[in-house]
């Protein structure tokens, strides 16, 4: 009876009244988190903006309106224009698309690498495990952003290459998390029980390990999107990421930075979109973590 509250509530957890389906239970817990719902709404709006934002303007992102260079937001150009006469609304729509595609693909890819490396190291154990961990630790403390810039500057400009580069230098942290969770899963009683009942290894991995990693992976995916957006922004801002003529939110920020006092609207709209994107993903990630974690008590305080 280390925890007085837990002692009393111990009986409550086992009460047979809890008969909701699991997915409905998760959904209910998620929906109770107000922040997460706000996040979902923002994200849906952002995706909608990226998908159909162009209907609000006749201009395409690469069109140049030479009659309106560096103009404030107006009826013709709702978000203004830049030095080249590009319509900012069209530009931000395109930039958001780019940033979203890059962020989503990098998150998926880093997650794949992280699962293979992390779970593999945990499963194989022994020397392989120790060497992998050493490499991960090394890469974690090496100023990887410098190397990222070094590599991407020469090969990038193309957003597809940027995806590859960001993936190559972005998997370590998640891999470490996956590894530590997998090692604890490997030690679970029900895994041992299944082993002793003669259940085959791959069945144990599929039935007992991956479903438990699932929640972790979903949460890490959303947080990975945030990290990637931030890295991509930094790289593009410094001129090592997406380059003209292509645009991303980061390169738009870089463009706007130079004229921040004379034409603040060039900076404001991509900055706002960026922050909305990362905040919404973080809120969703937090909400998912609380909803999927069976030990979480966060639901009780709202």
């Amino acid at each position, binding site marked *: *009876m*280390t925890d*007085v*509250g837990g*002692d*009393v*509530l*111990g*009986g*409550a*957890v*086992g*009460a*047979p*009244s*809890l*008969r909701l389906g*699991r997915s409905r239970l998760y959904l209910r817990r998620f929906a109770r988190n107000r922040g997460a719902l706000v996040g979902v709404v923002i994200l849906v709006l952002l995706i909608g903006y990226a998908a159909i934002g162009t209907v609000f303007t006749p201009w395409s992102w690469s069109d140049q309106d030479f009659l309106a260079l560096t103009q404030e937001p107006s009826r013709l150009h709702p978000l203004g224009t830049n030095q080249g006469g590009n319509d900012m609304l069209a530009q931000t729509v395109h930039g958001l698309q780019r940033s979203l595609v890059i962020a989503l693909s990098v998150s998926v890819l880093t997650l794949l690498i992280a699962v293979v490396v992390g779970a593999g190291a945990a499963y194989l154990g022994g*020397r392989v495990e*120790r060497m992998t961990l*050493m490499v991960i630790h090394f890469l974690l403390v090496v100023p990887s952003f410098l190397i990222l810039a070094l590599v991407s500057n020469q090969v990038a400009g193309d957003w597809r290459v940027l995806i590859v580069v960001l993936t190559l230098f972005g998997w370590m942290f998640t891999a470490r998390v996956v590894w530590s969770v997998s090692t604890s899963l490997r030690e*679970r*009683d*029900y895994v*041992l*029980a*299944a082993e*002793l*009942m*003669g*259940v*085959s290894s791959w*069945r144990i991995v599929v*039935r*007992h390990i991956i*479903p*438990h990693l699932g929640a972790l992976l979903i949460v890490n995916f959303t947080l990975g999107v945030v990290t990637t957006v931030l890295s991509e922004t930094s790289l593009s801002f410094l001129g090592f990421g997406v380059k003209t003529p292509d645009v991303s939110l980061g390169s738009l920020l870089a463009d706007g930075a130079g004229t921040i006092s004379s034409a603040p609207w060039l900076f404001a709209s991509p900055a706002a979109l960026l922050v909305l994107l990362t905040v919404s993903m973080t809120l969703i990630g937090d909400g998912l973590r609380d909803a999927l974690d*069976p030990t979480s*008590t966060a*639901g*009780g305080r709202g």
Partner: protein
Amino acid sequence: MTGALLSVRDLHVTFPSERGPVEAVRGVSFDIHRGRTLALVGESGSGKSATAMAAVGLLPPNAKITGEVSLDGRELLGLSDRQWSGVRGKRIGVVFQDPLSALTPILSIGRQLADAVRVHTDLSKKQAWTRAVELLDLVGIADPATRAQEFPHQFSGGMRQRVVIALAIANDPDLIIADEPTTALDVTVQAQILDVLEVAKAETGAGVLLITHDLGVVAGHADDVAVMYAGRIVERAPVKRLYRAPAMPYTLGLIGSVPDPHATHRRPLVPIDGEPPSPLDRPPGCPFAPRCPLVVDACRAAEPELIPIEDEHTVACIRAEDVVGQRPDEVFEGALAAPARAVDAEPVLRVRGLGKTFPITKGTIARRQVGTLHAVSDVSFEIGPGETFCLVGESGSGKTTTLLEILRLRPPETGTVEVLGRDLATTPAREIATELRRAVQLVMQDPQAALDPRLPVFDLLAEPMRAAGFEAAAIRTRVTELLDLVGLPPDSLDRFPAAFSGGQRQRLAIARGLATKPRLLALDEPVSALDVSVQASVLNLLAHLKNELGLVLLVVAHDLAVVRHIADRIAVMYLGHVIETGPAEQLFAAPRHPYTQALLSAVPIPDPERERARRRIVLSGEQPSAAALPAGCVFADRCQLRPTLSEELQNRCRTQRPALRDPDEVSGVSEVSGVDVACHAVNPPSDLTRAASGKEGRP
């Protein structure tokens, strides 16, 4: 009553929770007097810990507390944290349950004790340190001056609990609250700690509030007992009166469901049906009514008041008069019958010289082996058809490792394992997988951990059958059979483990173990994770299944009382060795090995008169690590017999490891008992006997 040290009146504690407020304590009143011990007995969720923590103001801040708690007439509820801090540690000392987490890991033991002293006195640091060393000495820690400088992780569990007691008595408190002080400890260590608590009580003259679920501990150490159920005290009496004439069916059932390892014959064990109610949906009326065999309609109408039925004996039961004088098995039905005796035949499992070691490694990159942990050394036993065999030992004795080594169904590191007459080393892996695997199944200790929380019951039950290659149709019918077999409702199939109570989950785990119709069912501590009142019904289920299905049970347990109840034969393990083995009846009636004697003696008897009258053997120290096995007898360092032995024999104990032999064979007694003991003192080697007698003969 006047002059009480601690007086609690109508205490209520309510916690907020996700599903509404939880009333943990509902109107509890009691008094504690100086120099006396009140035991608060109850199962998990009964509100006993919440009551104790309310009395020291250590409940979480979100708890709502009403009522009165006064110490020497001074009201404590409503004190500010600062005012409380003048009471805690000075007037009231607390001993917590889990010594592993109760001490700050980054401060030395001496520093923690000295700090505790200095909170309430203006001693200098140096004086406080001296006092800390004295306290360590008082609670029986050898070489206290040196050990005071060490950190908690350098102390064993029992040693840490001694330190926690030292902390509690550092400022000579008037009241000691001990919250499950021995629950996390091994039984031989528990005996030591209970003695230390008695010393602490004598030293301080304090009153003691003892929180426990163990009726054996209560019998030996309490003066008065209050039984709690569902947040209320349901019965209160002086300890002898309570055990002799319980007036509440719950108390009666509780006493009847505790196995007694010292009983001369196996007494039937009564099960209490069902489980304690959830604090969120308590039934109206008496909370015990749904489980009570004597229930009448009036019980369900209103919750009975606590009323006196005799001097100092109060009870909250409208049928108290009908309960007093009854035996547990007269009131509760379905008492456990003694299991059928073993029949001589081909053994189902034969283990010969089983050994298992683990390397101890150091370094992260270039891992080098710095030692070997001898988890299991030279273990041999046989289990015949229809038999229940128990491996008994304290933590670290290698009993669970032995079990797992057998269940892996792989050729062991050393020795041989034969299952159904087939040697694992020579049987092809395919045959093991298809034939032997389904014949040997396992039930683990903690059903909550052993059942994957993400799988519904159907999949959980089907998993071992799928692994054994059962047909899908056969699985479907078998699954319903299984639920019926262990007494779970048939609509459980699409529920998840979280929807079941602890006892139901263990039934589920047993059903899972039975899925493939095994010959041998291995159980690792099958009831130790369960509440006392639930344990009996699970033990009964096991006995029933064994008789019904002709199962062979291999049980690993630390609780001798439980073992006493189900075992036909027993092997006692210490530090990876079997030190005594034999039929359960004989082993309990006349233990031969000094460790077995000590182990049995350490188990408290749930009967105050016998418990206080008997002489107990209290071992010193704790089971050492198996990293460095002594050359001689593994038990020699703690052996209570050794100081009484001749010098030659003592020397022999230190240098030569005793073999497991039948002592009566050696001493030439014709009747063979079937007991084997590994002890030089019980089995004096013939040459030494001769030498000893020769020496005596000389002038």
